[in-house]
């Protein structure tokens, strides 16, 4: 190949790549509203940055999801676009372990359907109770979240007057948040405890 052709092809290939990288950077930092928290990924997901690099955006997890829990980002944001997430408030994960067993790229690590395996491996987040607004802490006996949990008495148990106590075994499926009858939700799924303050601020 001639030197001139080489440089021409290089420039012609650099322009679209630069537009894509610049566009991702611009829309991620300037155009879109900043996310205070990272989204909740389906069970078995790797750490956020690793997940974004491994996911091939094939949408097979959403197609296999029986509960219509998994949704996809589709914005002009090329970083997040096409990656799966779910909103516990709208629909929690029923922990069927179909999405991570169908994932072709390994962005969602396969986990067996055995309840003990789910309990030990899945870590989407952790439910946190806001005692200031929770019905059970304010004179009404409720306990909806305790009965909505797939691991009642292991991940969450009802104290006196069904006051919910979340243990460290909580996987963060969000079924309790979906079931909570108080609005705004008194029990919320968060990634870390520090994040709890952010979600409270939003409300």
């Amino acid at each position, binding site marked *: 190949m001639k030197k001139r052709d080489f440089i*021409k092809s290089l420039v012609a*290939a650099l322009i679209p*790549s630069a537009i894509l*990288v610049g566009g991702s950077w611009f829309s991620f930092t300037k155009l879109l509203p900043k996310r205070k928290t990272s989204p909740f990924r389906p069970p078995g997901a790797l750490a956020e940055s690793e997940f974004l690099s*491994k996911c091939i955006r*094939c949408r097979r997890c959403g197609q296999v999801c029986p509960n219509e829990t998994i949704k996809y980002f*589709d914005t002009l944001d090329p970083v997040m676009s096409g990656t799966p997430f779910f909103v516990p408030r709208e629909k929690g994960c029923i922990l069927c372990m179909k999405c991570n067993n169908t994932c*072709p*790229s390994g962005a969602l690590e396969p986990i067996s359907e055995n309840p003990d395996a789910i309990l030990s491996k899945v870590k989407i987040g952790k439910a946190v109770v806001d005692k200031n607004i929770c019905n059970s802490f304010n004179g009404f006996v409720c306990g909806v979240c305790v009965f909505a949990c797939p691991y009642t008495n292991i991940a969450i148990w009802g104290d006196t007057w069904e006051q919910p106590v979340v243990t460290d075994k909580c996987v963060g499926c969000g079924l309790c948040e979906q079931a909570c009858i108080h609005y705004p939700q008194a029990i919320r799924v968060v990634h870390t405890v520090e994040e709890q303050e952010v979600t409270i601020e939003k409300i």
Partner: protein
Amino acid sequence: MVALVYYNLYEKKAGQIGSEIEIENSKVLTAYDYVFGDENKPMLFQGDFEGGLWSFRFFALSISDPLSFVVSTVTALEFNLTMFLSILIPLGLVLLFGRFFCAWICPYSLFAELGNSIRKILAKIGIEYFRFDLPKRTPLFYLIISLLLSAIISIPITTLIYPPRIFTEAIYHLILSGIITSGLIFVIFLWLGEVIFAPHLFCRRLCPGGALFSLLGKWRIWKIQKIESQCDSCGVCNPACPYDLNPSAGYFPSECDNCSLCIDACKHNNRNALKNVVRFKV
């Protein structure tokens, strides 16, 4: 293939609403049901197919695009054996047939060829447009540069403009949530730009998948070949080639996607100088 994608997504939507949905205007499905299934309930591989062109599961077989494996591996800098196994069948087909995917499976090539014919009709009327072109090696360079940049920022930017992926997600979202994706808007504008400025430009000069397949298809054994004794070098086949190759000179490099348009053009002259043949030596 596309019928399978449609059918399975409609099945899912039916589950969403809690009733059965009639699939409109699907002659393929009707024909299939007529032969194999129940008249009232279509039985097209129910529950045994999921995904799209980019990556799908058929019974127990998981198949992914070779480009998805390359991008995922380079971006994450990690080898995934499960994913490597899922690309083995397409990889073998690429090594046998070269860039066949572009001409025979890729949904965008249909639109690109449609744009080509529109251009030809307009040229017959007498409207000639500006013909824009990029250097020949651009797709390979784009593949390499965008992979490097993806590895640096660890976001797979290479496939953002890859039509099979865009069509997979566009069909998914159009059926299930009824929204038009940003990728589909990009493809529509790309197609309009191609019709006006440069026919078939994307497939020839930018597509990263095409670049990867032509790189792997260098040693392919299924090729179009010129038969010297039959050919009188009339050159009818040259303008028919969407990739600007030179079929009349017997020049079929790895960019050739076996679309056979040159063979069709050759038959116009009642000659069969070009043939699809198996060749073991390049």
